[in-house]
């Protein structure tokens, strides 16, 4: 790959889910500065309005003016059509000389943290959660890897936005912990199967986002809620920018062990 000091990620096709806000939005912004002109950024989320705004911003940015192509796809990744529309847009926008495929599986939801495990008797609710947070990232990743198969001079990188919750149980967080643990394993299997792929489970830490706000307000478990409140009050929440910068560092240096779980505080 033609990595240069100012385009360390090379001529890339980057697909980012949950790109409309929070960490995903920041990832789109930061990655746009690390890829070479002529690279393609595909922004995916459900909210078309937010995506359009971000696309405009990035198109007007320095990177955009230098030739970065920014497209968005408003899609429900829980449906096959949604996944297919992302793959279609990616194929249409990219060229044969991409050197680097980067897929950032960031889209996620918190689930209802106001209840304990014993209160989850609604199958439809749990199914819906697993569909969005587990199945869709598996199917999207598979479809993208099929559409952009292994070939010489193409590095393929798959990132899973993980969490401490993938490793450690948090009371009243059964859906989120279960989903994150499932995803970590999923991507570890991928790493084992495909030694030419670069797979990273990145835990971004507690960030100042809508998701964190929700966590702080709704968490049923008193101790967990208190610790979030304390973090916010003591300025211990990371900005998306800080955490994302660490992810970019990992991607730039490209020395992580494929399949590893790396936490923001490890970097």
């Amino acid at each position, binding site marked *: 790959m033609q990595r240069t000091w100012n385009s360390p990620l090379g001529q890339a096709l980057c697909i980012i889910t949950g790109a409309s806000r929070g960490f995903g939005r920041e990832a789109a912004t930061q990655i746009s500065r690390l890829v070479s002109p002529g690279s393609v950024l595909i922004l995916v989320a459900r909210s078309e309005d937010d995506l359009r705004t971000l696309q405009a911003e990035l198109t007007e940015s320095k990177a955009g003016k230098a030739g970065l192509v920014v497209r968005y796809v408003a899609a429900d990744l*829980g*449906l*096959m059509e949604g*996944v297919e529309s992302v793959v279609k847009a990616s194929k249409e926008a990219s060229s044969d000389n991409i050197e680097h495929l980067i897929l950032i599986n960031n889209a996620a939801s918190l689930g209802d943290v106001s209840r*304990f*495990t*014993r*209160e*989850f*008797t*609604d*199958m*439809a609710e*749990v*199914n819906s959660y*697993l*569909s969005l947070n*587990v*199945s*869709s990232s*598996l*199917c999207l*990743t*598979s*479809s993208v*890897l*099929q559409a952009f198969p292994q070939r010489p001079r193409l590095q393929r990188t798959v990132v899973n936005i993980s969490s401490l919750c*993938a490793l450690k*149980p*948090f*009371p*009243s*967080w*059964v859906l989120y*912990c*279960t*989903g*994150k*643990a*499932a*995803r*970590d*394993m*999923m991507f*570890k*299997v*991928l*790493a*084992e*199967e*495909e030694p030419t792929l670069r797979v990273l489970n990145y835990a971004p830490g507690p960030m100042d986002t809508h998701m964190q706000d929700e966590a702080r307000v709704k968490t049923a*478990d008193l101790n967990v809620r208190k610790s979030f409140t304390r973090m916010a009050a003591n300025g211990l929440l990371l900005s998306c920018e800080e955490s994302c910068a660490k992810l970019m560092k990992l991607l730039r240096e490209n020395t992580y062990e494929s*399949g590893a779980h790396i936490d923001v505080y490890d970097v």
Partner: protein
Amino acid sequence: SPSTLGRGICIITGASKGFGHTLAQQVCSLLESGSVLLLVARTGTLLQKLTEELQSSTSAQQLVVRCIEADLSTEEGVKETVRAAKQEDVKDVDHVLLINNAASLPSISHFSSFINPDEVNSYLFFNVTSALTLTAGILQAFPPRPGLRWTVVNISSAFALQALPSWVLYCTGKAAREMMFRVLAAEEPNVKVLSYSPGPMDTEMQEEICRLTGACYDLLPCQEPGAKLMKLLLDNNFISGSHIDFFDA
């Protein structure tokens, strides 16, 4: 250590064959008079046969052995199971024991073959969602409290902890269950939760694995991992939320 599991209400899913079938037999011999054993599976005929066998072989013990034919991948199946459990006369019961054993084998193939969300969902809904919602339903039916022994077993696998190529759905489902039950353990001081990995056993599921993949192990007779699980339950020394493998010392 105690020689019985007390006067219990015990629910075992996937009880009509394989490991579940063996567990039903082994648990039966450890339950005291007045206990209730509920066996849940999709296949009515096999289940009925097992229920009758157990009822007659344990007639001296005065156990109630009942079968519930239910498809646990459906809301109705889970609700029916909880309903049936609630109907039992359990006023003197001192142990609620739920063994989440029902599982299915997914397509064993490369990660990138899984492009259809319906296929992935179908697998996760049966192997993850139904264990969660059934456990929640039974917890609500028999609320944990001090003085009532409450045990939940998650039949797990070494591949809940270790990634195995071509087994993404299976590993993902087992890893999901593992965490789910760890969260439960962290929340419920009056419930003991155990994720138990029984090792490769001589079951239809393992036959299928051998046929599909050519990976044919030396198989354990179900009785062996079953007996170890029974001992763990009798000794009751395990830390709630832990993962114990048959091959652990």
